[in-house]
């Protein structure tokens, strides 16, 4: 060994100087990054040159406690003003991924976040993830501007286009600001929509004439007053009679099931939910893009008890913003239904109701907790426990089969990958309430979600919730990780902890460059990538001529090496032992050095097939840990 090194060194010395390659510099974070991140905030003021339209808007965003902005450069006037105003700002590699990151930050905190890109191309790149945020009812402020109205219809230079029609159907509210002096007025419109009722994306576009307009006093700005005047914190509440009707139905039911939707999380109503459920031994399962506002490890949780769902004789939907139809949830055909929702128009949509109540989730749950007589339901609690044990046994059976397949093929089965992740994050030295996680991908997501847990509010993200987009996951969880680094809202007790994402080879292609962003901002994420060399629904091509090639990638791609090229760590895994070692090293690097890792789990696409590799892929019951549609 020493000799070989000596030979190599001799060869090196013998090279003429001109042919010697300069040493390759290491990946480094430019010094301007920490320097500018630590600069004090500097909001605009009417003094001197006055405030730009962008600064007026930024000041309002800061006063509204906009929790974070994720962007790519473009829309410079606006993003600079928002960053300068003191809103935590992150600049990344693609607008689409930044939009997903903003969504992820919001999904684990319930806070309003923003994303931004340049007017034409940056904005259109965000579309998939604006739609995903809309399906998830995320309070996301979408900003994209730079062009001038002066260029409209002339195709003046580049990038002109009408934005608003492009978000038709995927926003709650949108407006192109036209009159510069109404910039504050429309900021108020934006936050009324973001913070009231059922949230959803708000899309504002600022032509240059508005963003760059200057104001030296408040006189010409319309509706220039504070949030306590332009919006209200008042929420609808159920009448005493309605609360009593609900309490009666619940008390009469033998096996009530409470479905705590995202409204319970948005309204931070988990304490009231606990009072209600424990008062009468009501089973609870969460639904929506975030999990954990009812802990999976609670004795009343039905999240891991799919066999018991069909036994419920009354279901109470609270804050279920995106309603399924009866055949989409594993509930009995005769189950009675109560739905509590903050806006009247949605009551009765998709799911016929025995009782519909317009109410804020928190107000309702607090009132219900007072109206419900205490009651024990031992048989029902026992049934939940039996079903939980059956689910856990089934998972373990799948793991045993997966282990056999892994040993036989030298490739890691998804059941093994998922269980190893589970054991490491919930069964070992790490607090099982700590790690924020999310999953995506098809086979990947179906297996991973059966094993990921949410034991406290905001602990888990259903990345593909409702829209079913492949790809946003890694970026979404980097955004969630940013919230954990800052300790925002329910993440406060776990401030600084690493985040986790389990996603697929198809999915990682959409987001992987954001490992650069994670490194730049020191957001440690452990990303477990299930690499089965394919888009997982390749079985759809089996019986069709000339089709399979469209579903396959090159085999054995090295996502771990790509991650290294982006300043993260890479791990390559094919066996259970390698997986355990990789998790340990990745976690240590994340927790101690704030460094992210991509674990490339090499698998075979054929693991999808139930004939060759039982159990194949089982669909997951909804609602519950594996749900992603509703």
């Amino acid at each position, binding site marked *: 060994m020493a000799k070989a090194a000596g030979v190599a060194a001799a060869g090196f010395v013998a090279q003429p100087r001109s042919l010697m390659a300069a040493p390759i510099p290491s990946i480094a974070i430019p010094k301007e990054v920490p320097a500018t991140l630590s600069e004090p905030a500097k909001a605009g003021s009417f003094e001197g040159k006055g405030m730009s339209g962008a600064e007026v808007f930024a000041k309002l965003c800061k006063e509204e406690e906009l929790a974070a902005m994720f962007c790519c450069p473009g829309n410079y006037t606006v993003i600079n003003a928002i960053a300068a105003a003191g809103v935590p700002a992150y600049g990344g590699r693609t607008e689409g991924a930044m939009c997903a990151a903003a969504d992820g930050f919001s999904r684990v905190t319930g806070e309003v976040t923003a994303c931004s890109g340049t007017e034409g191309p940056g904005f259109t790149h965000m579309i998939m993830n604006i739609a995903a945020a809309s399906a998830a009812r995320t309070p996301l402020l979408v900003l994209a501007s730079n062009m001038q109205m002066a260029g409209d219809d002339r195709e003046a230079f580049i990038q002109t286009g009408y934005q608003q029609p492009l978000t038709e159907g995927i926003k709650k509210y949108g407006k192109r600001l036209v009159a510069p002096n109404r910039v504050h007025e429309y900021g108020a419109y934006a936050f009324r929509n973001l913070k009231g009722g059922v949230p959803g994306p708000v899309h504002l576009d600022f032509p240059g004439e508005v963003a760059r307009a200057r104001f030296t006093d408040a006189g010409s700005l319309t509706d220039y007053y504070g949030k306590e005047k332009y919006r209200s914190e008042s929420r609808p509440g159920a009448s005493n009679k309605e609360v009593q009707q609900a309490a009666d139905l619940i008390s009469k039911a*033998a*096996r009530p099931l409470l479905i705590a939707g995202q409204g319970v999380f948005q309204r931070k109503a988990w304490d009231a939910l606990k009072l209600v459920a424990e008062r009468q031994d009501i089973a609870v399962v969460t639904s929506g893009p975030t999990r954990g506002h009812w802990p999976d490890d609670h004795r009343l949780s039905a999240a891991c008890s799919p066999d018991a769902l*069909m*036994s419920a*004789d009354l279901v109470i939907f609270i804050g279920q913003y995106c309603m399924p*139809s*009866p*055949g*989409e949830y*594993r509930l*009995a*055909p*005769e189950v009675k239904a109560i739905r509590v929702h903050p806006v009247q128009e949605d009551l009765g949509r*998709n*799911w*016929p109701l025995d009782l519909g109540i317009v109410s804020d989730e928190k107000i309702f749950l607090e009132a219900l907790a007072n109206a419900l007589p205490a009651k024990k339901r031992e*048989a029902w609690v026992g*049934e939940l426990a039996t079903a939980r044990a059956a689910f856990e046994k089934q998972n373990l059976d799948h793991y045993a089969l997966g282990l056999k397949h892994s040993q036989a093929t030298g490739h890691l089965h998804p059941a093994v990958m998922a269980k190893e992740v589970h054991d490491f994050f919930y069964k070992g030295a790490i607090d099982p309430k700590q790690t924020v996680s999310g999953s995506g991908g*098809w086979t990947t997501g179906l297996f991973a979600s059966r094993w990921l847990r949410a034991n406290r509010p905001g602990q888990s993200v259903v990345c593909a919730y409702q829209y*079913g987009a492949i790809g946003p996951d890694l970026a979404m969880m980097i955004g969630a990780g940013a919230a954990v680094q800052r300790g925002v809202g329910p993440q406060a007790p776990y401030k600084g902890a690493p985040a986790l994402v389990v996603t697929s080879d198809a999915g990682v292609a959409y987001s992987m460059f954001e490992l650069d962003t994670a490194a730049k901002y020191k957001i440690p994420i452990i990303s477990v990538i299930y690499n089965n060399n394919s888009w*997982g*629904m390749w*079985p*759809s091509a089996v*019986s069709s001529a000339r089709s399979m090639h469209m579903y396959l990638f090159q085999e054995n791609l090295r996502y771990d090496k790509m991650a290294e090229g982006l300043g993260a760590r890479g791990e390559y895994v094919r066996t259970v032992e390698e997986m355990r070692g990789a998790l340990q090293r990745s976690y240590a690097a994340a927790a101690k050095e704030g460094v992210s890792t991509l674990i490339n789990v090499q698998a075979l696409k054929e693991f*999808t*097939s*139930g*004939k060759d590799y*039982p*159990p*194949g*892929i*089982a*669909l*997951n*019951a909804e609602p519950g840990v594996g749900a992603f*549609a509703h």
Partner: protein
Amino acid sequence: MRSREWARLRIDEVLEEYAARGVFKGFSKAGPGRWKMLWHRNREFVLEKLTDGQFAMPVVLPKVPARSEMMRAYRAFVKGLQSKELPEHRRIRVKLKVTASAGNAGLQVEPGDDAEYAVRKLIQAVHETYLVFLYDGARYDYLVETFDLDPDHLA
């Protein structure tokens, strides 16, 4: 023993109730002793009252050959719905059997002395077929081949 007429009217009402609960997306009476419902996977299901008084749904799962592994698994599943090990409220206590005809798996139930109960349990069994039986990994290929299932076309 309830009158035959009472039982007939009551079955209409019972099925209408499922439609009003949104369980069936569409429902109509298709003649004497024959009902049609738009239900799982947006497919039309037909329920018939046979001349011997039994209720039958000849096509619950299309394209399941009589002697296939899937047919055997389905029979076992339906038997499981009647198991004594199930909690009382889940157990189907009526003679419910799987039929195999024209390459399809169906269900047939004897009304006993309570036709309403029998029909309700048949509806429950179909519901569990689609929401439990077909969710098993072993049925994934069937879902792809029969219903064009893919991740974007699940329900």
